[in-house]
Every structure is written in C-alpha cells, then in structure tokens.
C-alpha cells in the first residue's frame, strides 16, 4: 500500500543556484498529486529530492526533512534503500537497451540479487499487467529488446520496471511529455488505476493532465511552492493571484 509523504523545510541547491526554497507540504497516501509550474520552477528538482536522485549530481545540495511513511529518507536510510521503496519514471523512456522486455522488468529485483525464477515470472507478468502492456508484449517477452518497442510502450515498460520492485510511492517526472496523444491517454488511464495501490506524485507541464488525473495539485514558481490544495480548488478558485494567472494562461 502507498504511504504519505511529509516534507518539512526542504531547500535544494545546484551549485550557487537556490532551486528550492522552504518547501512544506503533505502528500496523502494512495492519491495522485500533481505538481505544475513553468519550466525551471523547481518541480522536477522537488520530485528528485523525494528519492534522493537530486544528490547524484555532484554540485547538488539538500537540507530539510522528507518523511515517507515512518522513515526520514535523509537520516534514516541510504539513498539506495530509499530508491528501492520509491519508484521513479523519467521524462524520456529509458529502458535498458541490451535487455529483453522480461529482463527490463525483472532488472530491479535481479540487479539486487534476487534469483527465484518462479517469483520473478510472477512479478514480471503482474507488473506488465499493471502497466497495461502485458497484452501487447506477452508473446515475445524474452525475444524482443526493450528498445525495440514504440515510445509509448517503452514508457509503460519503464512503469512496469518501476512497479516490479513493489514500491510504496511512484514518482513520475513528466512521464508523457515525450509521447503522442494516444500513448499519453494510456498513461493517464494507468495513473488512475495505480492510485489504488500506490501514492503517486506526477510532475507535468500540462495543466489539463493535472486536472484529469490528480486529487491534489501544487503550483511551483521560482523555487517556491505557491499554492497546494485540492485539484478542484486550484483550477476553479485558486487562492493566490499568481496561480490564477498561470492556470488561466495570463502568466508572464
């Protein structure tokens, strides 16, 4: 089951660039939360702080606390352990090019030393079903390389790969921005279904997408969280002038 996320006084830097300033929010369990804002506003940095991917850049720095369920991810565990509990789907589909579809989905478990074939078979099938890709690829799981799929299929493969490690939270960094409309709507359907089981945080530059899939929406601007509320409220009756400007397209 998904767990909630509690963010307190989160600050992040890239070199001298203060990209996130004093972020505080609570992301509820088993819901989809959308993060919107103009590019460069810090929304991507924010999700990358939730699974400690931000710090893989040598010039990056983070302060503050993030609690996911019971644990503070910056003091109670190593980045590797955190990332095993929190799945991430990236902007561009990035399946492992040398691996088959099966191996791609199994990679999170296999590369962590898991060997039980029976369980792996089950996990791969279940993950692909959850990612709505099973029917399209079940015939050539081990024959086709992950890179041979179409862009939309590749992204769903990446979602399956993230689901296979049975995470508590699924972070999605503009998962549909590189995809065509049909693939995008498939991914959105998927998010709708996955909420039942996972806490989902999705970064998007597409406001309609946020309105369609998310219960709650946060608006970022210049490294600050301007407003965070139910999606309905944000899109119909925003509390902040800047949010209103942005969602009505009067921004800038």
């Amino acid at each position, binding site marked *: 089951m998904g767990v909630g996320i509690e963010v307190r006084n989160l600050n992040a830097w890239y070199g001298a660039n203060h990209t996130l300033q004093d972020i505080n929010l609570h992301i509820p369990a088993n819901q989809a939360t959308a993060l919107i804002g103009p590019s460069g506003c810090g929304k991507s940095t924010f999700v990358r702080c939730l699974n400690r991917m931000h710090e893989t850049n040598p010039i990056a720095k983070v302060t503050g606390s993030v609690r996911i369920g019971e644990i503070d991810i910056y003091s109670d565990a190593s980045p590797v352990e955190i*990332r095993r509990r929190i799945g991430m789907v990236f902007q561009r589909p990035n399946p492992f*090019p040398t691996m088959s579809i099966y191996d791609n989905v199994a990679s999170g478990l296999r590369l962590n030393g898991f060997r039980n074939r029976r369980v792996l078979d089950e996990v791969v099938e279940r993950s692909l079903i959850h990612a709505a890709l099973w029917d399209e690829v079940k015939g050539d799981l081990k024959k086709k390389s992950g890179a041979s799929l179409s862009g939309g299929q590749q992204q769903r493969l990446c979602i399956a790969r993230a689901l296979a490690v049975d995470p508590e939270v699924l972070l999605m960094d503009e998962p549909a921005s590189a995809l065509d409309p049909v693939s995008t709507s498939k991914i959105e359907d998927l998010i709708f279904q996955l909420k039942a089981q996972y806490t989902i945080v999705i970064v998007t530059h597409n406001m309609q997408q946020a309105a369609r899939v998310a219960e709650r929406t946060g608006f970022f601007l210049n490294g600050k969280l301007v407003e965070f509320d139910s999606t309905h409220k944000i899109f119909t009756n925003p509390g902040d002038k800047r949010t209103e400007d942005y969602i009505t397209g009067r921004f800038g």
Partner: protein
Amino acid sequence: MPNEYRVSTANRMRRMATNHLASGLAVLSTILVVAPLVAIFGYLLFKGASSLNLAFFTKTPAPEGATGGGMANAIVGSGILLAVASAIGVPVGIAAGIFLAEFGRGGKLANLVRFTADVLNGVPSIVMGIAMYALIVARQKHYSALAGGVALGIMMIPTITRTSEEMLLMVPHAIREAALGLGVPNWRSVLSITLRTASPGVITGCMLAFARIAGETAPLLFTALGSQFWSVDVNQPIAALPLQIYVYAASPYEDQIRQAWAGALVLIVLIVGAVSLVRYVTTRGVLKGAS
C-alpha cells in the same frame, strides 16, 4: 569593369594546373601506400600458403639443419602468452576505463591517468622487454612465459583503458539514472548496465589491443625467450610464433625460411581475422545496444 580586376588567363591556367597536379599527387601517394600493402599481403599469401603443411601445425621444430618439423609449440606458446596477457590487460584496462568514465569525470586525477596511459602506450616494446627482464626475470633468475605474458598484458592496458572510457561515456545518462532510480547498487549498475550497454565498443578495444600484442616480438626476447620444445609451463621459457619467425628469418637453411613465411601467414591471418571481426561486428551491429 576595369581590366586589372580581371583574373588573367595565364594566372587561371596556372591555378588550374596546380589544382590538377596536387590532385594527381594525392592519388599517386594513395597508390604508393596501397601498393606495399598489396605487395606484402600478396607475397605473404603466396609464400606462406605454399609453405604451409600439416606438420607446421602438429610438429615441434626439427633439430638444427634437418628439414621438416613445425611450429606447433610456438602456436600453443603464443596462445598461452596471449591468455596470460589478456588475463592481466583486459580486467585492469577495463577497470581503469570505468574509473575514468564513471568516477573521475573532468577531474585532475583522471586527466593525469589519461596522459600516463598515452605515455605508456608510447613506450617502445623493446624497453618494456628489458624493464620486465629487470623486474621479473632477473629476480626469479630464469626466463618464463609468465614474464612475457606480463609484458604483453601491460602493453594492452592503455588501449583498452582509453577505448573503454570512450565507449562508456557514450552510454546515455538516462540509462544510468534508470538504474540508480531502481535502487540498484552503484557497482552493480556500472557492471550490469553501463558496461553491458557499452560492451560492443569495449570488446572492440580489447580485440584491437589483442591484435596489437599478438605480433609483438621485442618484449618477448628477454622474457619468454623462446624454445624449441613443447612446454605449457608458465614458469619456463616458452616458444612464441613471432619469436620463431624472427629466429628462422635469419636462418641459413631454406626450410626454416620457408617455415618463417608460413608462420608469418598464420600470424597475419590471426590478427587480420581479429581486426576484421571487430569491424564486421561493430558495423553490422551484431552486438546490438551500443548507441
């Protein structure tokens, strides 16, 4: 238009003539370069093929002056030397390449390692031979296949390091992030994801290094030494194809010269085979996955 702005006919003729002359010279030099290659290969094929026989592959050298015999022990010896060399050069070279590409990016240390690898690559093979003599043979007080293998292995390192680095750097950053995002330990992600994705290029580097040392003679002169007998003991002197060719090339006996040609052919087929295989594999994309 005033007259002086016009290009005179004589001038234009001169420029065109220079143009044709230069083009002609470029074509001529290409012919002059291709010619010895064709000559060497042609002669080698002709001489070598007519000298090859079954005994060459199955027999050890005949006693001095006698005809017959072969280079079976030298072929096996070369195999052993190359195996020892690869066992040293391949892992160390790839590991150093991994360090440069994954951990040392842009750092001073990485630049220094890169530069030192280039320096090592330029050390003459004969110097490598005497250095290994001083470091291994003089201490053990006997010549050995091991010393020869170490010398060749060291010579493989710089090529493998630099090509591995280049190939690893070509792996897209997104692939590394995908592995990190799954909570895969860094070492596992480097070996099973990045290195595996880059493997066609890395293998190419290894094959090129292999082809380069397979024909090396100078580093073996004072290490593996050469031998007329069967030996598979890495602690003993061992025969090697290039060494045997060198010895026989200076021989007064017709039959040994014949065998030198046969040996040269076998060596070339081995090396050109490795190089062409690499080229085939990398251009045809038999090993898919490299971007």
